[in-house]
């Protein structure tokens, strides 16, 4: 039952939200937590020291990329990914399968594994559950992910979802059998089932029966409606065991992180905060701040006056407006730095609010700042209802409690003359 490489202790619960300590071989992570993505052994432009300063507890590596370069055997020879990149804290690697399916045109899933066309010579290649685990064993992350059969939630093929759900279970057994370092690495299973509650239920039952150290909710963040998204998360967080970490894969919009945390999820990852930074978009409590906007040319305020990160303590929007996305790498790093600081402060504040039993208030304050006119999207209101958090005083009376179309984007809002766009932006 208890994994030798992971101790998960829920320290506070309020409603469905919880604050926990997850002790991994390299670090005791506090959840809810956001994990920045270091695709190829580096979170774009950030030093590992900066990531520590920014209170990152776990970072991600992508198995597909790392196996291409530098190769897991080299990583192993260098003493593991932690050693290679000099990162003393928690690390998580994905299975590689999702990257293949999403990056390579000719990837195909068979019972054996994921077949794909080699990007080098076009020949047919195969990633099996055994291979994925062997590679991840060599990379040496604290948490490794099972190879699952991912079907995009937007696919309209019930039979395929049925197949994927059961195949994911068959593969988890192959992953468990292949896992050679259970004493040092934690294998997480990934719940599949698309948008079908019956399949999600089956997937959870089968995977929970394997008693793994943690569970991920997969197949989301792929273009499904926000309404579908939160309902799947809600079903899975309710159905997964309370004493194990719950990881919603691919989630990086601050609003999504808050909603999922309110529903009882613990871990999130996405390239969104770091990628969007390189396009000059900063995360702020009001939503996002697009630095390219000419309105910032004479705006001498920090990116986010409520943020105490190095960038916000030092730089003005006006400076960043002029240099971001114009080929000066240090400027892109500055916005990345802030965005990571923002996500870490967000989760830190949630943890504290849960521990101090004022989480519903905190959520109301968060939503009130992001939606000052009270136009909280319907899916958020519905999700908060499911989470048992009242939005009284936050949602404007004109906005009826339910039945608004899902995934409404918040239109551009202005704040103090500066262009700030609300946070409910659609994926893409």
């Amino acid at each position, binding site marked *: 039952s208890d994994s030798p490489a992971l101790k998960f202790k829920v320290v506070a619960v309020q409603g469905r939200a919880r604050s926990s300590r997850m002790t991994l071989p390299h670090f005791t992570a506090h959840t809810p937590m956001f994990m920045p993505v270091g695709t190829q052994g*580096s979170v774009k432009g950030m030093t590992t020291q900066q990531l520590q300063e920014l209170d990152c507890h776990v970072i991600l590596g992508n198995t597909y990329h790392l196996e*291409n370069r*530098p*190769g897991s055997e080299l990583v192993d020879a260098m003493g593991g990914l932690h050693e290679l990149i*000099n990162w003393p804290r928690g690390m998580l690697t994905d299975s590689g399968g999702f990257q293949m399916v999403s990056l390579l045109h000719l990837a195909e899933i068979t019972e054996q594994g994921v077949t794909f066309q080699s990007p080098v010579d076009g020949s047919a290649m195969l990633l099996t559950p055994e291979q994925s685990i062997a590679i991840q064993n060599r990379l040496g992350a604290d948490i490794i992910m099972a190879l699952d059969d991912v079907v995009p939630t937007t696919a309209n093929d019930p039979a395929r979802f049925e197949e994927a759900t059961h195949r994911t279970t068959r593969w988890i057994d192959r992953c468990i059998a292949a896992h050679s370092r259970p004493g040092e690495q934690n294998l997480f299973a990934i719940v599949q089932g698309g948008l079908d509650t019956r399949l999600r239920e089956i997937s959870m039952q089968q995977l929970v029966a394997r008693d793994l150290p943690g569970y991920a909710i997969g197949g989301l963040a792929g273009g499904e409606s926000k309404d579908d998204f939160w309902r799947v998360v809600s079903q899975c967080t309710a159905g997964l065991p309370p004493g194990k970490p719950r990881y919603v894969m691919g989630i990086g919009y601050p609003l999504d992180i808050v909603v999922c945390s309110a529903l009882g999820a613990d871990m999130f990852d996405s390239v969104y905060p770091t990628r969007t930074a390189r396009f000059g978009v900063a995360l702020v409590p009001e939503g996002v701040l697009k630095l390219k906007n000419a309105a910032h040319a004479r705006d001498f305020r920090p990116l986010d006056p409520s943020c105490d990160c190095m960038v916000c303590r030092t730089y*003005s929007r006006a400076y960043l407006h002029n240099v971001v996305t114009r080929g000066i790498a240090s400027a892109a*790093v500055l916005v990345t730095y802030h965005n990571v600081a923002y996500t870490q402060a967000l989760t830190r504040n949630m943890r504290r609010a849960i521990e101090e039993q004022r989480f519903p208030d905190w959520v109301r304050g968060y939503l009130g700042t992001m939606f000052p006119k009270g136009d909280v999207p319907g899916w958020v209101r519905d999700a908060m209802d499911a989470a048992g958090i009242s939005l009284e005083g936050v949602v404007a009376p004109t906005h009826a409690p339910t039945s608004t179309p899902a995934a409404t984007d918040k239109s551009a809002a202005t704040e103090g003359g500066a262009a700030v766009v609300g946070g409910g932006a659609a994926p893409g």
Partner: protein
Amino acid sequence: MIAALAAQSMATTATHFSVRARDGKARCGILTTKNGSIETPAVLLYTRRGGPLSLTSPDMLAAVTPPVQGVQLDAMQFLENPDASIIREHGGGAHGFLCLEGFPIVASNRDPTMYEYGTRPSTDKEVHVSIHSGGHMVSPERYMETIAALKPDLFVSLCDEVTADTKPKRVATATKRTTAWLDACLQLHAAYQQRQQQQQQEQQRQADPPAGQGANGAAEAQPSSSGNDGVSGSGSGAAAAETGPLSDSLLLAALSGGGQAAERARAAAAVAEKEGVGGYALCGLGTGEPPERRPALIGASLGALPAACLERRPVFAPGLAVSPEELLAAVAEGVDLLDCALVAQDWRPEAAVTGAQPAAVDASPATSQAQAQGGAAAGATGESAPDAAPALAPAPAPGLGPDVSIGADDTKINLWSTSYRLDKGPLLPGCGCFTCRRHSRAYVHHLLNTHEMLADVLLEAHNTSHVMAFCQAIREAISEGRFELYQQWFSSLRAAPLVPAPRHVTSKRRASGPPEAKEAAVAAGASGEAGAEEAAGAAEGPEAAGEPRRSKWVRV
């Protein structure tokens, strides 16, 4: 003594310079500004539009060891986006706007990594420059308005830049214009040193808005000057009210003359003793002239200046430090300050210099070696890594020398090379920089291979530290009277030819297994025969890097 010199130079100028040691024409000095002092010879940190390329300020900039002494910026990059009115409105000058507090800032008239002049003709009134926002005609007034907004510690006067191969007639015109513009800049400098005259200047501008500012010019000028009031007035009372934005700035007179020694001498003599000149800038060099001609050109400019002028005025050479040799050659001629294309252009993308810190190299003269080792050790101590340092790589066999097959000589290594794939050692053993204290050659090699931004960050952190250490070693050599020896010794390091890699070395390295690969490659490289076109192939370049060679995917 410094106080006396200061009083002697300019009563209103806080920034001043004094020479402390000489060796031949090379000299060590100290340049004092209100934002800190610079020990010369010094290389200034390169910035583009005011931002260091990959090092964030303050954290990564502060991690450079020995510390960055000063920062160079190109004033022309502040003509538009942002322009002077925005910087003025901010009120903190370049230091505040760019978050470079604590660093003396030298505003140059050009970027050392590009040449923004000559795409369109200039006139007697304005010089044409091409910057990020397109072409601009820049008058002394517009230039000085920008300088006054930036409030740099030192700045170069407006120069009609011409390249070294320009025809004599055009060079003569350039000299005439540069001299006239110096007078205009000096006048405006004097005005901007005093608050009242600055306001007069602003009133003049309101009456006659410069091109580009448009109809809103007058309307903008009012709030911006009140913004200035808010900043300078609130701080230090009556004294501040009397001083203008350039009260602490030193004007460096642009010395033109293109590639012609006689013209350079004439130009320098014409401006040498003008009142208000606080130093000199050797303009128009590094524009294609053969490096071996450069000492004569620098000598022509500086030789025409009275010794007394040089005694208390620093010499800045923009655009010259594109290689360590050129830096040394400029210093040998008496240059005090250089901007730096070194890190930005030459070393940054792929190589970390290793030999500029003359530590533990057999070839160095006994005295300098002892001294240098002391210096290097001093640089490294006090910087001992607080956290676990990466394991050191096995030292290369003595006498083996650098692996020339992979583009290395005794002054740099090419981290693209696959021979560093498994190298757990720091970029430069003994280096106390951020990168060497935390990361391995293998990691930087991997980051280069995968085109990760962090490669640039880590290389710039090391290379910048290295250039600073190089300057420190140069200063030590000068003050100990062994600069020429040092220069010779350094040239001998670089004399190791960049021998291209023999093909068999390349294939052998790729085929060999992990632990022995490096040794095998090094040994083979040292004994290998030459083959010109393989040189590029030996260094695993961006193209080759796209190829996953060791992946464990199962072929079906």
